[in-house]
């Protein structure tokens, strides 16, 4: 922390010397200000008001202005400013609304000079006129700014911002009569000191309070503002309308901003909350700070450049009760730590890679892998002498070209589209996928699918006459659950809490399931059969004294089965739950060795499956008599890892989904998650949104399955007034017009809306589909040749 470099700068006769140093204050500081001679600094806070002399090696306390028996609130300072013309004159803004001036030339111990008690609320900011000796300006929470002449007892003029809370006031350095004020509602106003009746100009600079502003010391009309919205903006006020010239996005709300002397584009900022560092930005390079000072342990509340013509000394006060002098030379420069690199794929699979020259040179021995065998082509960018960041401008660009046809990924797309991942019995899924792979000429993959089928399914399905074997066994069929919500959705409707509880538990844990199905079979008094052990469609039995009357609802019917309160589609998007998406195929084989066939199972024998796959698809398969159930699992796991290593993450994920719980437990969650994310990323790059969404839905990993539940809101703007439509998706509140009309039937579209990206006409999905079957022109008659795919 104690960096020992020393800097000496000569500034027109006087010399500034010093090093990075800090001293401890007794209390948190709220603001600091530097004396004209750059040798003294004043620190003010709630319970501190002191002047320190800046010496070469350390800060030395010169004067404590907080005197008197009982410190009054007048001394609780929100802001302090030292006059830049008169070394003896200081002003403070008190939290109770008083503006106090101090005259260091007074012989007595108490240096307090004048007291202005005109503001009703906290005064946030005071500011001396840069050239005039007696003019002081204050801005307060009550929305007023007042201009004081120190030769008089009260204010000369009052400016009303017509809004709550003035946060900052600053006299223009160049224009004698102008000052800027910033407000809590995001506005910035420009005033002429001679005209208190109304402001010269007003514009909205930020979203939320503007905490600070600073005029550029040289460029007339440049004003930097910082706000709660974490932005620093630079405005050009010389034009007719204030023009935003630069915008720097920081990571926390901006509490102070100060232009760096002698550096036209640099400014220093510190933040109000969370972030304790001071940054110096080059406004033309808004993403990486030019320099960073990390000395403070709590938020920095005041910053000041030590001398108006010396760019290397920065002083700061902080809530952590320290006063610091930072040397620019000791600042950490994030730019140096960053490795500027760029990587981009071309349309035809070409890969371009740009990096700092030094980095590429160092690695030249190693040839980067790029999927083809051609040599990279190197470009070197010429240095532009006008460029502000000369040090970074030298970079190399490498382009790796793909061999034509070599990088074709059509097999990937075809496979992704044709694979079946769920909704059918395992055997069928495997067969289907094997067929898909074979058709694409991927015989190894096809073989793998066939083997999976052999491993996990008996060659011939157990005939459905085996049905009454055991219901408990039925639950062991690990079919991927198509509609994983169906169970849960039904549950609240059942009414009874205990029942809901049990069926929820079932989907989660196997043991509970076991119990519940056992009770189902053995317990005659059981009121309801559980809907638990049915994967794709579900069983709803209402026994009510007639135990044999069971209903198996077919999937079509389930559509009408929804919970009582379901959010409507309009206005507020329907949301699924983030957790508790009950992973479907969780019922494992370990059920196979659970012998709980009881005598009463005949009662439930009428449980006839509607579909071929139904409840019982997996019997005691081949192996379960001869081989332990997880005999193959290591093999399968190795196989998955093999495919993933090969880069065929598609295969790994597909098998993972299809085979489900049988292998999942052997592979650690992180790897699974990694596979899933890679596959989803690939799918999205190929714009296979539907497939990717299906994969997300079928994944059992929590981190993955919440992917399609984030940001599901769709914002719509009115087509007439271009404003966002807040309450309803089809009627604009402002212009009271229906925004989305169907071009075919001229009615309002309230559901699915499809529109042409070329001419932006559209309408009901069905109508447009129908129309475009018969005609290729836009139904609105605009002459555009629309395409529907």
């Amino acid at each position, binding site marked *: 922390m104690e960096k020992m470099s020393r800097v000496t700068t000569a500034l027109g006769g006087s010399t500034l010397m010093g090093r990075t140093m800090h001293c401890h204050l007794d209390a948190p500081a709220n603001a600091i200000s530097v004396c004209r001679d750059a040798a003294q600094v004043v620190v003010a806070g709630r319970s501190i008001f002191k002047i320190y002399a800046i010496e070469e090696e350390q800060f030395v306390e010169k004067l404590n202005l907080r005197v008197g028996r009982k410190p009054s609130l007048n001394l609780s300072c929100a802001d302090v400013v030292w006059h830049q013309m008169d070394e003896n004159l200081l002003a403070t803004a008190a939290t109770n609304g008083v503006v106090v001036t101090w005259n260091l030339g007074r012989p007595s111990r108490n240096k307090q000079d004048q007291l202005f008690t005109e503001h009703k609320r906290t005064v946030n900011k005071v500011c001396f006129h840069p050239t005039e000796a007696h003019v002081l300006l204050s801005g307060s929470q009550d929305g007023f700014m007042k201009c004081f002449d120190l030769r008089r007892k009260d204010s000369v003029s009052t400016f009303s911002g017509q809004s709550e809370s003035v946060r900052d006031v600053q006299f223009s350095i160049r224009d004698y009569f102008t000052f800027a004020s910033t407000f809590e509602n995001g506005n910035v106003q420009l005033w002429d000191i001679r005209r208190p009746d109304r402001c010269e100009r007003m514009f909205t600079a930020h979203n939320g309070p503007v905490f600070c502003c600073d005029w550029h010391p040289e460029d007339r009309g440049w004003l930097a503002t910082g706000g709660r919205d974490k932005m620093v903006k630079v405005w050009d006020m010389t034009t007719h309308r204030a023009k935003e010239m630069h915008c720097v996005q920081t990571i926390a709300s901006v509490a102070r901003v100060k232009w760096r002397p002698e550096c036209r584009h640099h400014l220093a900022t510190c933040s109000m909350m969370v972030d304790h560092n001071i940054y110096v930005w080059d406004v033309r390079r808004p993403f990486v700070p030019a320099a960073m000072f990390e000395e403070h342990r709590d938020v920095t509340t005041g910053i000041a450049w030590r001398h108006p013509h010396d760019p290397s000394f920065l002083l700061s006060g902080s809530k952590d009760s320290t006063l610091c002098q930072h040397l620019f030379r000791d600042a950490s420069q994030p730019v140096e730590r960053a490795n500027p690199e760029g990587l981009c794929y071309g349309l035809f699979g070409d890969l371009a890679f740009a990096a700092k020259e030094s980095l590429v040179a160092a690695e030249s021995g190693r040839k980067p892998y790029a999927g083809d065998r051609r040599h990279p082509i190197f470009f070197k960018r010429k240095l532009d002498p006008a460029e502000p960041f000369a040090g970074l401008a030298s970079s190399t660009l490498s382009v790796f070209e793909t061999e034509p046809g070599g990088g074709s990924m059509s097999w990937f797309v075809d496979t992704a589209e044709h694979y079946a991942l769920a909704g059918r019995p395992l055997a069928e899924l495997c067969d289907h996928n094997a067929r898909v792979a074979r058709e694409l000429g991927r015989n190894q993959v096809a073989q793998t699918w066939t083997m999976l089928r052999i491993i996990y399914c008996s060659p011939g399905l157990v005939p459905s006459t085996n049905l009454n074997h055991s219901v408990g066994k039925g639950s062991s069929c690990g079919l991927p659950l198509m509609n994983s919500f169906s169970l849960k959705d039904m549950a609240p409707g059942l009414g009874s809490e205990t029942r809901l509880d049990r069926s929820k538990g079932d989907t989660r844990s196997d043991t509970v399931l076991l119990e519940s199905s056992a009770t189902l079979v053995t317990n005659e008094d059981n009121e309801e059969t559980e809907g638990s052990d049915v994967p794709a469609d579900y069983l709803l039995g209402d026994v009510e004294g007639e135990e044999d009357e069971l209903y198996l609802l077919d999937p079509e019917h389930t559509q009408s089965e929804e919970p009582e309160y379901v959010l409507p589609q309009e206005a507020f998007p329907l949301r699924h739950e*983030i957790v508790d998406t009950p992973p479907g195929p969780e019922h494992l084989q370990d059920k196979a060795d659970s012998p709980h066939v009881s005598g009463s199972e005949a009662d439930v024998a009428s449980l006839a499956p509607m579909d071929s796959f139904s409840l019982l698809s997996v019997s005691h398969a081949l192996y379960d008599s001869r081989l332990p159930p997880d005999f193959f699992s290591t093999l399968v796991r190795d196989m998955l890892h093999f495919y993933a290593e090969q880069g065929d993450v598609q295969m790994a994920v597909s098998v993972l989904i299809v085979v489900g719980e049988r292998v999942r437990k052997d592979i650690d969650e992180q790897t699974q998650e990694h596979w899933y994310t890679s596959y989803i990323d690939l799918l999205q790059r190929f714009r296979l949104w539907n497939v990717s969404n299906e994969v997300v839905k079928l994944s059992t990993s929590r981190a993955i399955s919440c992917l399609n539940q984030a940001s599901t809101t769709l914002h719509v703007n009115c087509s007439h007034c271009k404003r966002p439509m807040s309450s309803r998706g089809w009627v604009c509140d402002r212009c009271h017009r229906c925004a989305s009309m169907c071009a075919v039937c001229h009615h309002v579209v309230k559901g699915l809306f499809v529109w042409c990206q070329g001419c932006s006409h559209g309408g009901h999905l069905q109508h447009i589909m129908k129309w475009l079957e018969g005609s290729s022109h836009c139904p609105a008659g605009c002459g555009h040749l629309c395409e529907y795919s």
Partner: protein
Amino acid sequence: MAEGESEVRWDGLCSRDSTSREIALENIRQIILRKAECLRSVRETPYRPPDGLSNAVSLDGLNKLLAHLLMLSKRCPFKDVREKSEFILKSVQELGIRIPQPLGQGPSRFIPEKEILQVGSEDAQMHALFADSFAALGRLDNITLVMVFHPQYLESFLKTQHYLLQMDGPLPLHYRHYIGIMAAARHQCSYLVNLHVNDFLHVGGDPKWLNGLENAPQKLQNLGELNKVLAHRPWLITKEHIEGLLKAEEHSWSLAELVHAVVLLTHYHSLASFTFGCGISPEIHCDGGHTFRPPSVSNYCICDITNGNHGMDEMQVNSAGNISVSDSFFEVEALMEKMKQLQECRDEEEASQEEMASRFEIEKRESMFVFSSDDEEVTPARDVSRHFEDTSYGYKDFSRHGMHVPTFRVQDYCWEDHGYSLVNRLYPDVGQLIDEKFHIAYNLTYNTMAMHKDVDTSMLRRAIWNYIHCMFGIRYDDYDYGEINQLLDRSFKVYIKTVVCTPEKVTKRMYDSFWRQFKHSEKVHVNLLLIEARMQAELLYALRAITRYMT
């Protein structure tokens, strides 16, 4: 036989499209009539073995449906649904089945039903609000109906609440409702607890959790302590509390989750204040909101009994009010006069600094002893105590022991600068929403006072706001706390204090006895100020602790 209630789909009714509403209603009608028919045939067939259990179950199911239908017939913003629901109820009645009747006197027990906006007579803006609220929740709750006195605020309130409960956020949905239940239970607010128990189950929460906090996951149990301190003595929150939650091995909270939880807790603490402060009645379709008994038997609900508000009570107060009409008329005049005086003489006599500081201390200390005289123990109407532990921990025993409340200086940590930034950083967009809500609540005014128009009420509003913060030890350097004493009389202070600190003890008498000449809408306005000020105070303490933890 009965296929379970799950068949009934209420969501279709929330649609803005009248045809889809009609279809949904028709569907409901058929199901209900079928059920009713079933029930009747069961009753009328003598040779069928009497099966009391299943009969009772299906009757119970039907009754739930009927209660819901009753709610719709009264509280649905769509006219067609209201009419049709009533029609269905009538036709069920014709089948000889008893239909439920609403209990109580409208959405609030304090405000006569005729003062409150009737559903159906709202203007376009309010209708849009109602429709939004109905679409989001499938109901129009009584809180909404009372808040609609101030539609501007209501809109912001609903938006925030919807975002907190249903939109993207770090916590899973059932956690959010459970936290709401925990927070409301601290004030024994059975209204909110009931409401959120339903919602909690609806989003798939585990019913076991409802048996008590000890059945919930450890993670939520850990939150119990923060809930307790936040509700009653927020100034005691330290960064150790925060650290305890964030570093609890596998049960630890993330910062974002914690901020979400804190916002929810404070929201529901203050909403509990509102519920009691305005005497919100139970929802029609919830327990205690309707009866199947003939209307003549008894006309008051349990909550009324426990709070000592019998139907008769209103009569007495009214007659008492008549006597003191002139008296209370002077109250308003006096208040206006004082405001004017304060406005004028402010510049003339300037109190010394010590004077100002001591005024704050006096007000703070006095606020502890401001309590209503009828301060007896009230047992909660429904057994909500199982949702929280340590029932004895309340605001009361603290004030009795005269504990010292440390001073929190708003100039050092305020919502606009610090709280907002922290919340928005950890739980994006919510900071903005809450900020808007605070602003609307603080700046809301119609420039009226009782029968006077064009009055600048900012001084009065600021006094109320700062008085509440004063009770929590939050001090504004730039405020003269002497003003509070001038503007707020004792009965008003009693009301504020009770609503904010021990809302479960609010009685109708308290509500009636302050500001007697003022309109009900103005009293609701006061309540809005109270709950927002309380929420901000709690948030400030909690967020300051989080900030301290982070630095």
